[in-house]
């Protein structure tokens, strides 16, 4: 009896050991696999490259990175995803690509991976991922087709999340006793006061160049001022009171901005702030690294960070990248393991410490991360208000966006009447939507 009990105990221990070995190494089956991933040339993905050796060391899975400039990356993906067998196991994509790729059935639905107990890590804690980004970059098929909703499903995970944040020159604000703007009235007031107080300095440097730059800058103000591009029935409402207010805000900012700001793209707007030619910068959080880099910036240590000012509501932008598995990938399971590792609490913290943009609430609150990057807590707070619907993610948006951006550029440079300009955009947008079938169910 004693012997039987001893044997049973030994068997139990042995079984437990075998089981624990199996549980402890979910990567074993995939060790030696080489994954080919396609990432953009972007500060976040430069940081990702620094942590990939840690993934390989831990899992035995090799990763080859094909890093391309963003536009080239999209071109390459368009070609690759259309093939029967693609080269990429994992891709990074911008939010607009989500609509195109999901609609063309080129991205894997992630449900079957998260349902697979051999692949899905129970400690992953998906609730810690920033909500707005999951819906903005990962979700498709919900409300409006691209938002959270009961009919939606997950096709990607945010990785390299960015939102809009206000950077301001602490020294200039202190010198003139200025309060950091909390709402749009204060923002516009200070933006135009700065050139009077500091001759030669612009108030706020903004993107404004024709096309997607001007459109981006306008939409940045539209959401907090209470506007939207479409109502719930896809009717364009970009020309309503909030739209006009947003365009006026953009025009005021450009008029009170640094010299030549009507032709600024993102690079020039940031360059102007880095060179100390402007007192404020309202754009993506990804710039923080450059602002603190003495090789690139003349304003190191002089910049404070604040939330995107409120209009009628909080509504900062959602941008950045997500990662997804192409339908034609060769090593889908291993790619999921990499995706899961990168976006896990551990991976997110590692990439944040390497200079990337974390996508989890916990990383933004992490003491070690905040000790290294003191702005991270403010960024985390801003991310809570990131608006996944600040711009529509529909297949025809590229055309509407281009029209909006070129028309706004005319407002900024040719003094085209704002109401008239936005009425024109709304009319043309209606025609585009009509042709794309968005009014099929009307009446």
């Amino acid at each position, binding site marked *: 009896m004693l012997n039987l009990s001893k044997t049973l105990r030994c068997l139990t221990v042995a079984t437990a050991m075998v089981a624990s070995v199996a549980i402890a190494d979910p990567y074993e089956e995939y060790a030696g696999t080489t994954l080919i991933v396609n990432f953009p040339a972007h500060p976040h993905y430069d940081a990702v490259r620094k942590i990939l050796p840690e993934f390989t060391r831990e899992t035995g899975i090799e990763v080859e990175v094909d890093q391309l400039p963003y*536009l080239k990356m*999209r*071109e390459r993906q*368009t070609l690759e*995803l*259309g093939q029967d067998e693609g080269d990429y196991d994992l891709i990074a994509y911008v939010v607009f690509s989500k609509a*195109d*790729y999901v*609609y*063309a059935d*080129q991205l894997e639905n992630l449900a079957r991976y998260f349902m697979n107990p051999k692949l899905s890590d129970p400690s992953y804690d998906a609730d810690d991922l920033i909500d707005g980004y999951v819906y903005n970059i990962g979700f498709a098929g919900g409300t409006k087709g691209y938002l959270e909703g009961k009919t939606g499903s997950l096709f990607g995970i945010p990785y390299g999340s960015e939102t809009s944040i206000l950077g301001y020159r602490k020294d200039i604000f202190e010198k003139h006793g200025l309060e950091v703007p909390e709402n749009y009235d204060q923002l516009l007031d200070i933006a135009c006061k700065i050139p009077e107080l500091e001759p030669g300095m612009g108030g706020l440097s903004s993107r404004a*160049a*024709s*096309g*997607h*730059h*001007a459109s981006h800058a306008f939409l940045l103000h539209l959401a907090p001022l209470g506007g939207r591009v479409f109502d719930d029935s896809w009717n364009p409402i970009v020309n309503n009171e909030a739209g006009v207010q947003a365009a006026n805000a953009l025009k005021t900012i450009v008029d009170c901005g*640094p*010299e*030549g*700001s*009507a*032709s600024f*793209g993102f690079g*020039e707007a940031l*360059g*102007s702030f880095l*060179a100390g*030619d402007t007192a404020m910068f309202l754009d993506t959080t990804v710039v923080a690294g450059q602002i603190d880099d003495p090789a690139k910036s003349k304003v190191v240590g002089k910049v404070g960070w604040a939330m995107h000012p409120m209009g009628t509501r909080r509504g900062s932008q959602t941008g950045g990248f997500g990662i997804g598995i192409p339908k034609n990938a060769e090593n889908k399971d291993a790619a999921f393991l990499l995706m899961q590792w990168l976006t896990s609490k551990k991976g997110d913290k590692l990439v944040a410490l390497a200079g990337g943009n974390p996508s989890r609430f916990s990383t933004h609150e992490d003491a070690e991360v905040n000790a290294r990057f003191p702005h991270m807590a403010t960024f985390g707070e801003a991310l809570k208000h990131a608006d996944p619907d600040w711009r529509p993610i529909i*297949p*025809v948006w*590229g*055309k509407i*966006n*281009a*029209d909006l951006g*070129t*028309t706004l*550029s*005319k407002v*900024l*440079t*040719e003094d085209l009447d704002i109401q008239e300009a936005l009425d024109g955009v709304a009319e043309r947008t209606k025609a585009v939507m009509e042709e794309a079938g968005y009014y099929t169910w009307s009446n």
Partner: protein
Amino acid sequence: MVLALLYPLGYMVYGSFRDWDPSQSLSESTFVGLKNYITLWNDPNFHESTLVTLKFALSVVTVEMLIGVGLALLLDRKLRGMSVLRTLFILPMMIAPVVVGLIWRYMYHPTLGVFNRGIKGVGLEPVDWLGQHALLSVIIADIWQWTPFIFILSLAALQSLPRSALEAARIDGATGWQQIIHIKLPLMMPVLIVTCLLRLIDAFKVLEVILVMTEGGPGLSTEIMALRISRTATEFRELGVAAAMSNYLLIMLLILTVLMLVYNRYMEYRASRAMRVAQEN
């Protein structure tokens, strides 16, 4: 060879009759007949783009021809260091267009750019180069890059002119100007026409420099057709419309080519007729 030449062209023409998204293969797309052509015909943005293209191409080619041929006439002589000078002249055309765009974009920068710093240095108001004068700015950049092309071909043409005709003119007492107007330019004309045609074709298709410098803005003021085609294909994801636009551009270039060749033939005919009359007399 004919197949290799015509297949891509046929593919483009075929694609222009279809509603074609980049995520589809051409065979998966839907046939829409002439819809893409009609849409473009009624599209004010396309009209503006066409107008910008014409303005840009005609301006740059005219100025480049004048400066390029003028320089060639000026430097068609034995000077010390001429070979170094020629190499220096052709440097701009050796630079990648994207780099040319970036260089000029920074030179035109409102505060850091060399032009505005110079203008401010002499106490004048800075110029909004890429804002209010965007088209002029890209025209200047193109002239800088491509005038050497005209110069080199013109110089080659000049140096291959029959020396006997020039000698005879000199003996007859023709002045320098008379030699240029009555001998050099008429004899150079076939080369100049081909050179002009090559530059026109290229100017109609220029993309990278403008893309980097202005991205077509402000508004659509520098959005030439090549840029609109690129945006239609990549941003709007309408490959069928982009193909139709390319065909419109092709037709425009074909008309220009035919007109210039007809003009060349006419000039040759006139010259041979004049020669025949002279011989008969």
